[in-house]
């Protein structure tokens, strides 16, 4: 009597793992090649896919990675790139100079191996009718952002340069909230990357004032974003990095020359994105990858040095890092 009732319950235990098996092969089984086994590498993205990464997606779609016998997988991992790359669970990642600096001080052995964009395209945006055209105009206004020490120090430094009083600025923590909504209702100005958020504002017909960091202080022309690799990989398998970087550099040159195709490559790998924004952003960004550098990706010691110095002088880092260990151009031959 009891036993009869129990059977269906027992079969349930078997049913659930069975269900799991049903789904798993479909997800794990992405195409694998039959001939010369390509080297599988993982690239971690520090944000959701966007036009900063287009060169890599172009290299993927154009077969540049395949030519180097690489099977590249991109995974968005905002917030954990450094830990995972230095832990060796992924070969490459996207980061930025400030993060690399803090990471190295914290003992994470990551190295910047290329500057994706030659110059810092970020800055402070506000609605046109607020009339914030210089850092002095921040006085008495509210800033919306993450409220991190570096943000505060940056605002302070810019204002002091203009002879304004930082203490009159209110800092509001708005975190993940869309910056364009933040400057419309929660705050007066926010820190944005023009190539994405600024372009989105243009598409929406919002009129912005934009104060680009590097126009105010050359020390703030730090590298963002950069590609990083772990010291262990550089030590053990420089040849793999060489191949990855050769194809990646080709991809970024391709993206600069064929923005529409690069945008398509990005969209093919992230169809969730807004096509109009991707196209417009790509057009805006195409000359910014290499910009005035002799080759795509090159980093200057001076720029690393001066931003590290800047961070140190403001007490944001307690000691200087050895910048020669923090970045390298050796994979950009």
């Amino acid at each position, binding site marked *: 009597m*009891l*036993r009869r*009732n*129990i059977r*269906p*319950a027992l079969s*349930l*235990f078997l049913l*659930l*793992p069975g*269900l*799991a098996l*049903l*789904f*798993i092969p*479909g*997800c*794990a089984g992405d195409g694998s090649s039959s001939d010369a086994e390509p080297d599988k590498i*993982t690239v*971690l993205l520090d*944000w*959701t*896919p*966007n036009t900063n990464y287009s060169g890599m997606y172009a290299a993927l779609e154009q077969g540049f990675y395949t030519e180097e016998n690489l099977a590249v*997988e*991109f*995974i*968005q*991992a*905002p*917030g*954990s790139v450094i*830990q*995972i790359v230095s*832990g060796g*669970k*992924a070969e490459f990642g996207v980061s930025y100079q400030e993060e690399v600096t803090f990471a190295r001080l914290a003992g994470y052995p990551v190295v910047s191996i290329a500057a994706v964009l030659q110059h810092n395209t970020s800055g402070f945006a506000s609605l046109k009718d607020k009339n914030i055209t210089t850092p002095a105009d921040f006085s008495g206004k509210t800033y919306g952002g993450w409220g991190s020490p570096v943000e505060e120090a940056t605002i302070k430094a810019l204002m002091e340069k203009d002879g304004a009083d930082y203490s009159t600025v209110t800092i509001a923590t708005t975190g*993940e909230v*869309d910056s*364009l*909504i933040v400057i419309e209702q929660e705050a007066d100005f926010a820190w944005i990357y023009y190539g994405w958020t600024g372009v*989105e504002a243009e598409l929406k017909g919002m009129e912005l004032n934009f104060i680009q960091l590097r126009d105010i202080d050359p020390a703030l022309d730090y590298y963002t974003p950069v590609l990083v690799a772990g010291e262990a990989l550089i030590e053990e398998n420089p040849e793999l990095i060489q191949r990855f970087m050769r194809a990646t550099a080709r991809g970024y040159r391709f993206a600069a020359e064929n923005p529409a195709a690069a945008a398509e490559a990005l969209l093919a790998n*992230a*169809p*969730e*994105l*807004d096509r109009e*924004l*991707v196209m417009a952003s790509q057009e805006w960004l195409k000359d910014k990858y290499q910009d005035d550098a002799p080759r795509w990706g090159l980093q200057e010691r001076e720029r690393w040095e001066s931003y590290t110095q800047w961070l140190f002088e403001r007490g944001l880092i307690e000691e200087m890092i050895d910048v020669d260990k923090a970045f390298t151009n050796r994979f950009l031959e």
Partner: protein
Amino acid sequence: MKKWANTAKRSLPGALAVLAVLLLWEALCRVADVAVSKLPPPSAVILSLYHNASLLAEHSRATLAAVAAGLSLSVLVALALAVFMDRHSWLKQALYPLLIISQTIPIIALAPLFLIWFGLGLTSKIVVVALVCFFPMAINLVEGLEQVDPETINLLKVMQAGPAMIFRSAQLPAVLPYFFSGLKIAATYSVMGAVIGEWLAARWGLGVFMLRSMRSYQTANTFAAILVVVVLSLLLFKLTELAAWLAMPWHRHKSVYPEE
């Protein structure tokens, strides 16, 4: 027939309430002329659902894989642990506080570490789901086993029944209602658990879809993904109810589809 009519009658207020909220929401968006990027009206969400159907289906598949595996894992671990805890009271005393502590851990803070411990693939998502689902399962099972009539167990022991026999014929039937109420809670949370895991690092999954649409300012798409999460969670809940109904014929009048 009467049963179905009853069921329909009872779900009517719920359906009407949902409909009323949706209509009010739509009206509010239209009257107040709210920007779609701030609060998309239900119509925009439905439209986005339609346009992204195949993409959402693909992302859902990845999420469901993590859900199915994580939920199964949590059920198996919770069951094994509960049985051991029931057999040895010192183990129960030792582990019960740990069980509760496991639930108080803010997963969102720990999940980035899971990526490092368990890799970037499906495993780390499975672990997050399992951790979310484990607690309601374990607590309910422990409690259920406590309710087994000791007299019955003594009687079976007198009749020379081994532990396996006792479990099958006395403990399991008694614990099933608790098992299913735990599973209902776990199943409902499981999709959210998977989304948290995907939010942190993934190639596929509803969490990936949400984050990408959010970051490219497509709020209606984000809401569409939320809707999919809600529907999947509800389906899992209903599936659990159905399984409970099938597995416990003697319990039907008590929990599901009461006939008054």
